[in-house]
């Protein structure tokens, strides 16, 4: 019945992106614009005894040089942490370091010059008198009594401790289990690397006293709020933040970064526009990193395969400063997902957020949920081997059943809907699971190392309601705004507080509105990313845009329909109750009399002219602020097959199949794109990516020569399937599709590699499973077998 919803409509934004006509912050050229470059620390930890910028200031073409002290003296504020659980200890994070640098890449001074080359030449002339200090980089070692202290304000480098559940009760149940699987492991640091590096341009207008900031961000409204209340102190009504086309974020562009303070401040100081564009090298040492957990976990299982208890302790590396949402990731978005798809009667989880001399760690695609899924799915896989059970059978034994929703887990969440057996039935079908098993077993008989990996993952998307997330420590609610404006000619502008940076909102939201109002997609414009155009909204991350932002738009469309029906009734002299809004073509007629009708444009004009009921306000513009009653819980069954080269440890990912329940689907092509891309990112963590620091806090993987991003030939196209169990958390029934590929990709492939090595007796190898690491495991296994 719907014309657009559920259809693979081609993305309306693609022609401009494919043809290089996107407008990114770096494309912006303003008259008299200065170019900023930032002097960054080569040390992980050092006192700053002095900064001598005299030679830099004297260089021809240099406009100004400012240090951390200049910004501090001018009253610039600390970058705030926006998620503060009870008992958290924080420390200031100045946009440019004042007394001490705390990670390689920490900013020390900024140069503004007439051109960017001169700015970089000037950086080389700034002399910083550093007094190097010992560094700490490991999340757990940072808590040792003799570890170097990153901040005087944060004793033992421990910013917060977040427990959920009763440890003693859980251990009691654990001890009564037939079998306990124990695992110490890491979830390695990842470096996001969106295709477009971050960038910021600021222009201060001294006459109107207004600041305009263009920044490559996932949520311009939140950035404006933080600039107003914390860093720059410019009130919201004098501050406009614009995030135009943004070339990917993956979480790393959610946060308020130092450059978003430095650049506007410099513009105001100098009375001229200032531009800063991150280099790729800078991105490696300044964009928030992801993951980096050290974990000890235990899963209790009875001989029949029933899970009894789960106990987890995690040390989460926060890096040198608490980034905007950092403490939320290893707490409210991590421990609350420990139940997975399963009934686990007793769960305890606790995490410590620790400070180290590394780049701050915050949300990266999946944000906490990949870490939760990885730990649970690895433990279950080991349990399946220990019990000699098929890994899918063991999972099925513990599934939450379809009639048990809404399901209250022991870790706060109430799951909305799902049918995990159906999900796995379909995954087995799509992957050809039984044939895969035969193929693997045949290969094993030939002496080859072939393995199959399975995972069943859960995600919490579309976070809400706001009072729940704020009670956990979030500094903002997670409602969303959606405004539908019908112009007098019948064309439509939709204003959303979400932000698209690869998600295709200009297409999917237009599909939604086209069906809701019965108008052509071409008549609809989606407006986002400019605080002067759209009312406050919370941006895009955590797979929230369709579930929360889409619902707000849908509800505004409902209001528009009701108002249009009332106007039509007035004009046709009929009762409102008798009016029928035909969503096929946007006409309104009297029930039973299709001839007595008005078109969408008729009513749009009438609303302008005032030909409306006396008690009605003119114009057709409706807004909704939707606060979701609950999260949504997308879920997945992914299956992969790998072959490990016995001699070298090289891994070939032979097959990957994924079946997901992301609820109702607006555009299957876009959902499939999200999944294919997400899976590649998940596989990247399993096989390739690793942000490595040495003991002195030097980043050893600071370029693509050393940081292994997945490439097209590393990963096959995945076979995709879908089941659609609508979410009751929103009227669209959508759940969220942006992150599941990444969440499930890692444990699925890691489990496959471990299955391949199972005949050798290998139990666990930390990810990434590089050829060298796997070869090492094969060597140790054959040594211990001898």
């Amino acid at each position, binding site marked *: 019945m719907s014309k657009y919803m559920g259809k693979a409509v081609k993305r309306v934004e693609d022609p401009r992106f494919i043809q290089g006509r996107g407008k990114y912050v770096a494309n912006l050229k303003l008259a008299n614009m200065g170019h900023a*470059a930032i002097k960054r620390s080569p040390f992980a930890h050092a006192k700053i005894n002095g900064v001598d910028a005299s030679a830099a200031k004297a260089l021809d073409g240099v406009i100004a040089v400012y240090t951390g002290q200049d910004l501090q003296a001018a009253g610039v504020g600390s970058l705030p942490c926006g998620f503060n659980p009870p008992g958290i200890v924080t420390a200031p994070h100045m946009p440019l370091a004042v007394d001490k640098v705390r990670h390689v890449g920490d900013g020390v001074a900024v140069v503004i010059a007439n051109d*960017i*080359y001169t*700015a*970089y*030449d000037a950086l*080389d002339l700034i002399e910083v008198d550093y007094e190097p200090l010992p560094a700490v980089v490991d999340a757990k070692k940072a808590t040792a009594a003799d570890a170097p202290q990153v901040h005087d304000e944060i004793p033992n480098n421990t910013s917060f401790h977040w427990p959920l559940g009763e440890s003693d009760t859980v251990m009691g149940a654990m001890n009564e289990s037939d079998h306990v699987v124990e695992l110490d492991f890491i979830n390695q640091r990842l470096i996001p690397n969106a295709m477009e590096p971050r960038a910021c341009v600021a222009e201060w207008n001294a006459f109107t006293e207004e600041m305009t900031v263009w920044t490559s961000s996932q949520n311009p409204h939140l950035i404006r709020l933080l600039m107003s209340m914390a860093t720059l102190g410019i009130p919201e009504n004098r501050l406009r933040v614009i995030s135009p086309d943004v070339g990917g974020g993956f979480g790393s562009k959610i946060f308020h970064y130092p450059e978003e303070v430095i650049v506007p401040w410099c513009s105001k100081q100098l009375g001229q526009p200032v531009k800063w564009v991150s*280099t*790729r*090298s800078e991105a490696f040492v300044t964009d928030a990193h992801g993951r980096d957990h050290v974990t000890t976990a235990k899963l209790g299982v009875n001989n029949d395969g029933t899970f009894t208890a789960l106990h987890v302790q995690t040390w989460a590396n926060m890096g040198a400063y608490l980034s905007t949402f950092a403490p939320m990731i290893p707490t409210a978005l991590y421990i609350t997902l420990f139940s997975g798809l399963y009934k686990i009667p007793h769960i305890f989880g606790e995490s410590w957020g620790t400070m180290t001399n590394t780049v701050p760690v915050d949300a990266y695609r999946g944000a906490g949920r990949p870490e939760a899924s990885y730990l649970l799915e690895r433990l279950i896989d080991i349990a399946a081997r220990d019990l000699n059970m098929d890994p899918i059978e063991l999972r099925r034994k513990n599934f939450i059943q379809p009639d048990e929703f809404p399901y209250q887990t022991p870790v706060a969440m109430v799951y909305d809907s799902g049918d995990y057996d159906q999900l796995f039935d379909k995954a087995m079908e799509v992957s050809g699971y039984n044939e895969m098993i035969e193929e693997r077993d045949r290969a094993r008989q030939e002496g080859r190392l072939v393995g199959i990996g399975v995972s069943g993952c859960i995600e919490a998307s579309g976070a809400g309601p706001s009072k729940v997330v704020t009670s956990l420590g979030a500094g903002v609610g997670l409602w969303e705004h959606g405004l539908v404006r019908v112009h007098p000619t019948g064309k439509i502008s939709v204003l959303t507080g979400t932000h698209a940076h690869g998600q295709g909102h200009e297409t999917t939201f237009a599909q939604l509105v086209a069906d809701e109002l019965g108008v052509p997609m071409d008549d609809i414009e989606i407006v986002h990313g400019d605080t002067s155009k759209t009312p406050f909204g919370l941006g895009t991350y955590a797979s929230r845009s369709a579930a929360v932002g889409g619902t707000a738009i849908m509800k505004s469309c409902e209001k528009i329909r009701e108002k249009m029906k009332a106007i039509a009734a007035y004009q046709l002299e009929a009762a409102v109750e008798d009016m029928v809004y035909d969503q096929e073509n946007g006409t309104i007629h009297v029930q039973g009399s299709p001839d007595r009708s008005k078109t969408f444009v008729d009513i749009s004009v009438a609303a302008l002219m005032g030909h409306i009921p006396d008690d009605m306000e003119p114009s057709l513009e409706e807004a909704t602020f939707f606060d979701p009653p609950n999260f949504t819980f997308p879920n997945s069954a992914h299956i992969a097959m790998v072959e490990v080269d016995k*001699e*070298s440890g*090289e891994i070939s990912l032979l097959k990957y199949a994924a079946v997901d329940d992301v609820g109702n689907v607006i555009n299957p092509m876009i959902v499939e794109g999200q999944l294919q891309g997400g899976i590649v990112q998940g596989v990247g963590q399993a*096989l*390739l990516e690793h942000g*490595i620091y040495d003991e002195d806090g030097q980043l*050893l*993987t600071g*370029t*693509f*020569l*050393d*940081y*292994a*991003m997945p490439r097209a030939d590393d990963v096959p196209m995945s076979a995709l399937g879908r089941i659609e169990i609508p979410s009751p958390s929103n009227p669209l029934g959508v759940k969220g599709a942006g992150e599941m590929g990444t969440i499930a990709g890692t444990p699925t492939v890691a489990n496959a590699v471990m299955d391949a090595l199972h005949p050798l007796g290998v139990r666990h190898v930390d990810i990434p499973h*590089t*050829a*060298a690491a796997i*070869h*090492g495991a094969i*060597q140790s296994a054959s040594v211990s077998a001898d």
Partner: protein
Amino acid sequence: MYPPKFDYYRAGSVEEALALRKQHDGKFLAGGHSLIPVMKLRLSDPGVLVDIGRIDGLKGISAANGSAKIGALTTHAMVEAADNLPDILPEAAGWIGDPMVRNRGTVGGNIAHADPASDLPTVFTALQAKIHVAGEGGSRVVEASNFFTGLFETAMSDDEMVTAVEVPSKDNHTGTAYAKLFNPASRYAIVGAGAMLTMQGNQCTAASVSIGGLLPNAIRCPSVEAALFGQTLNEETIAAAAAAVANDIVADDVMGDIHASAEYRQRMAPVFVKRAIAAAAARA
């Protein structure tokens, strides 16, 4: 990623290039795919670049009298597409970087840079290539096995430049192959092995084997070659010959990094030598 200031000269001939370089104490710029990145990272500040990229006659492949001459400015993409070169060359060239790198990067620039993890030094060593080098005093020819002398070091002086590389042309009785363990990030070689075998039936009548990636520079593997010579090649004899690579590698010279320890690389040497030999034998 903004390089320091530099002056730029474009040479129209080899002679002019050599003179400009000497006059300004500059560096030669060919495809720029090694030099420009290190300049952008400000790890290199040559001050003066002498662009040799448009010198006539240095680009292209010509074959005559049993050998093929690859001009120094020939790109990796051209080598990848060539049908008159031994199989090992298109094979290895096709694994260098990505299409953009292969379209710009040059054979001469690559070997003059002498990156230990680069593929072509190993390939040319196996092919017993002759490196044509021009200097003020005229030109000379250096055997590949003498050309790569250390970490980013060659037998050339600063006053010389590569003009061409001469390799045997493709021949029905000779099989060549390159086997490579990729660095997962850079796709450079953690270990790369090259083999050129002449066969009569199953018998190996001539063998040239090289290894690179794990050492400061690519080397010939005389122990492996001796073990192959005269042998009837099968799985066992190939494995045995490959194992002899341990005698050709000075253990203390083997490099390790975050991607692969020295121990792992050493263990991988016979594995990839074996693969190169097997593939070359199959092609002979």
